[in-house]
């Protein structure tokens, strides 16, 4: 019961940060979404030590463990567009799928290649440093 209360309070805290993010977006007419501004804000607050991890950690863990559920109300919106799954609409879905595969393959491959290269460079760097010292 106590744990539920802690989670509820912390979720409310995260909601507050989200509210600040939305407010900042409107106030400065930013092209970035309020929730993402809130995320960046929390990240900087954690990095600078202003906000301690234990203040919001449990609430965050709780929300993230239910993340797929939180998307369900928007995905159910497909119900209004079922005609897309017939006739020419199917082609547009095919376009989305092909493009998704391309994005995934390219960004994943480039990311892995660059990451491995960067890791190798640090290793070599450390080895040479080791040899000199």
């Amino acid at each position, binding site marked *: 019961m106590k744990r539920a209360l802690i989670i509820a309070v912390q*979720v409310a805290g*995260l909601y507050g*940060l*989200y509210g600040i*993010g939305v407010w900042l977006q409107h106030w400065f007419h930013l*092209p*970035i979404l309020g*929730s*993402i501004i*809130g*995320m*960046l804000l*929390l*990240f900087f607050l954690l990095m600078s030590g202003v906000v301690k*991890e234990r203040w919001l*950690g449990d609430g*965050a*863990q709780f*929300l*993230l463990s*239910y*993340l*797929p*559920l*939180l*998307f*369900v*109300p*928007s995905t*159910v*919106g*497909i*119900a*209004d*567009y079922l005609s*897309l799954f017939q006739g*020419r609409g199917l*082609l*547009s879905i095919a*376009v*989305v*799928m092909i*493009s*998704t595969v*391309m*994005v*995934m*393959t*390219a*960004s*994943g*491959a*480039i*990311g*892995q290649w*660059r*990451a491995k*290269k*960067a890791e190798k460079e*640090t290793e070599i760097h450390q080895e040479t440093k080791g040899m000199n010292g």
Partner: protein
Amino acid sequence: MERAVGFILLTLVVYEVMKKLYVRFYTPLLLPIVTTTGTLVAVLLWFQLPYQTYMEGGKWIGRLLGPAVVALAFPLYHHRQTLKRQFWPIFQAVCAGAMIAIVSGACFSVLFHLNKKVLFSLLPKSVTSPIAMDIAKEIGGIPALAAVYVMIAGIFGAVFGPPLLRALQITHPLGVGIALGSASHGVGTAKALEIGKEAAAISSIAMTLSAILAAFLCPLFVSVLL
């Protein structure tokens, strides 16, 4: 009021059951977001209820999405060292992904003779739905339709992405995270969370970056080339 509570409870119960089913059989086709959505859509169609009615309750669950995105700061914070070390590889890969998303979406739409309104609605499909809807509105698409394409990209990527990446031997958490985040936004990030905390952290960075990039690139691409 009662109806709203009913829809919230229905969503929670269906989701819990589908999660159990997924854990029991563990195949990507039974991903809870897919089966829960499918079941709820079937219920709405069976009782001939409009989506709007469902949203009287559904919106309360959706409302937690904002704070949940804020909560993604935690995996980011836990992996701050990786983030610092790997910022450039992530940035380059996500840039490539964002450009390919737009160019391939446009090319195949033209190739398949889709009409312009559809093209403009599916162009921002790789980014999180609120941003995609804004982008669609700006370039002359239909926001609600954009949200549907976003969900198709998300679900398709979450279901078939992991086996595809394994087949291509992309197993580095950085590659997996970037791939899921830049192709399938939040739904992909939720899937990455299942794979590992590091992949999820990178996926949330990738989804954020690609949303910001798409907000600039889509209007630019449309005004220059179409």
